[in-house]
């Protein structure tokens, strides 16, 4: 852009950027440092609790806590499940929408797309009632009354509108559209079946965009809060985000707030995994986000 830049200007730009980035990063740094040092280190400082000794005892204790361990396992299973489902569904659906030619194909896609305009929070009530009053499940009769339906079961964690993730389908479809149709012709001439075509020909070509979908799915499932809050009461099948948050609310209301370092360790367990995933794979992530954000 503008090439001539005075030293003062350069300095000002870097200064602003560094201060700004520090503000964004500071809370996480504070949290992690406070949780790995000793209590004495923490209370000796104000701005940044620099640890004089390094210990992960607090995290080890949390993992040994059977409840937190359960939450972590549940969240990991749920994330894995949604990652697999979302990848499969978006691969197959975008194959159908780009490589097969039949009447009504585009209308079906438009119906899918329209649903993207409806924010999930608006349908939280009907979705809750759909799960709670689902006929013949969880002690319900044919009218959906009498039992608890799928509420408080794994069904509530594994089903839902996330199964058909339209944004993910959209993203994969964009990529698949750019693949020339000759590949499809070649596959058919060689006698490859539909699934073989999808998984041996297209899957390797859209791998980059699938990585984006894996990261976004992981982060959104890991950070899912409202749905587990209304749908799950049983601590054995609760997920980490809602579980830890509710645990903290109970503690705060009863006035038994843990020491700050313990508190920060407990919250770091929820906050750190998405950050790590994001930092490791952020190059893909930002491209995907910008792509989806502007086009979607």
């Amino acid at each position, binding site marked *: 852009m503008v090439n001539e830049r005075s030293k003062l200007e350069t300095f000002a730009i870097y200064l602003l950027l560094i201060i700004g980035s520090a503000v964004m990063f500071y809370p996480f740094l504070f949290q992690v440092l406070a949780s790995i040092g000793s209590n004495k280190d923490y209370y000796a400082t104000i701005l940044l609790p620099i640890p004089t000794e390094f210990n992960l005892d607090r995290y080890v204790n949390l993992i040994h806590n059977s409840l937190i361990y359960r939450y972590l396992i549940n969240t990991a299973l749920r994330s894995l499940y949604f990652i697999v489902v979302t990848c499969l569904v978006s691969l197959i659906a975008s194959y*159908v929408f780009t490589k097969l*030619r039949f009447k*009504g194909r585009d209308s079906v896609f438009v119906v899918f797309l329209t*649903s993207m305009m409806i924010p999930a*929070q608006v349908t939280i009530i009907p979705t809750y009632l759909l799960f709670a009053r689902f006929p013949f499940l969880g002690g319900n009769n044919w009218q959906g009354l009498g039992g608890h339906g799928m509420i408080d079961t794994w069904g509530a964690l594994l089903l839902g509108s996330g199964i058909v993730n339209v944004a993910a389908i959209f993203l994969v479809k964009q990529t698949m559209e750019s693949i020339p149709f000759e590949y499809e012709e070649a596959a058919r001439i060689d006698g490859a079946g539909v699934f073989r075509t999808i998984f041996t020909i297209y899957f390797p070509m859209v791998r980059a965009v699938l990585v984006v979908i894996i990261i976004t799915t992981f982060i959104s499932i890991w950070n899912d809060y409202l749905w587990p809050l209304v749908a799950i009461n049983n601590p054995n099948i609760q997920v980490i985000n809602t579980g830890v*948050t509710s645990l903290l609310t109970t503690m705060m209301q009863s006035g038994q707030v843990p020491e700050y370092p313990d508190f920060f360790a407990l919250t770091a367990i929820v906050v750190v995994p998405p950050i790590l995933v994001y930092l490791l794979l952020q190059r893909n992530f930002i491209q995907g986000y910008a792509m989806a954000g502007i086009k979607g």
Partner: protein
Amino acid sequence: MSRIPFKKEAPRAQPGDASLSFRQRLRLFYNRHRDGAIGYSLLAPMFAFFAVFSLFPVLFVIYLSFTEWNGVLGLPKWVGLDNFERFFTTGDYLLTLLRAGFYGLLILVGCMSVGFFIALLLNQKVKGVGLYRTLWYLPVVVSFAVVAQIANAVLDPVTGLVHNVMERFGMETIIFQQSVFWMTFWLILITIWKGIGGTVIIYLAGLQGIDTSLYEAAKVDGATRFNILLYITLPSLRPITMYIAIMGIIASFQIFEPVQLLTRGGPQGHTNIILHRIYQDAFQSFNMGMASASSVMVLLFTFTLTMIQYRISQRNQT
């Protein structure tokens, strides 16, 4: 017949072809409609899930908004427009909706001005753009609920860090939880901090998409940097700004965690916003009809704003 033919080379069974058996006719029919058969059979299960978990809830919430139901016993009772009448006349329903929009505006102003400024800085050929961008985006990927709980602990009137720091520096301490102004302030500040990374990335992508020849031409004509910003950069980013603005207002109807965990709608319901109101109606008072009516109002607002956004983006393309 092992390989699957294309539609263009698949012959149609002629009406006079009496020699063809039913099976052969079926085969010819399938060959012609093979794509459709496979397509629909692959889409059918997806569409079934989609219909049950995405389409049905929308219709269901519209139906429920005309009924009264506690969601547990009996069946919904039709009450016509009663819930909507209540939405507009009694309680704080309309207020919580407008408040959400107002917070949305404040958050937008913060996110857009700072976000645009940071994107401008990042676009100035600085070293380590990736690192800054990464750091700015960090808050977006973490759990809002946990962020709200951390804020809760930090702002605690007795043990909170902010309290301790103020005390140590000899300032007069404030009990934030009793002040509408301060709770609104923290709510908005935290939401801006949490969401600004997205704005930065969208603006940066927009800035990088501006044709550099425009800048060169302006420089040749002797335009100052301020003029370039005013007459080239800002107009080029107008579609993106509109997009961010409308999406930001829509997102403000979905703010939940900080209100539920940090302010609990208080003090005295003065920071309550629509989604939290819906939650209270549905899961604390078990008034599903009223909660659904509020949801439908949010849906209408969102739908209108999305349509406006769509219209604008269409107009910009032509």
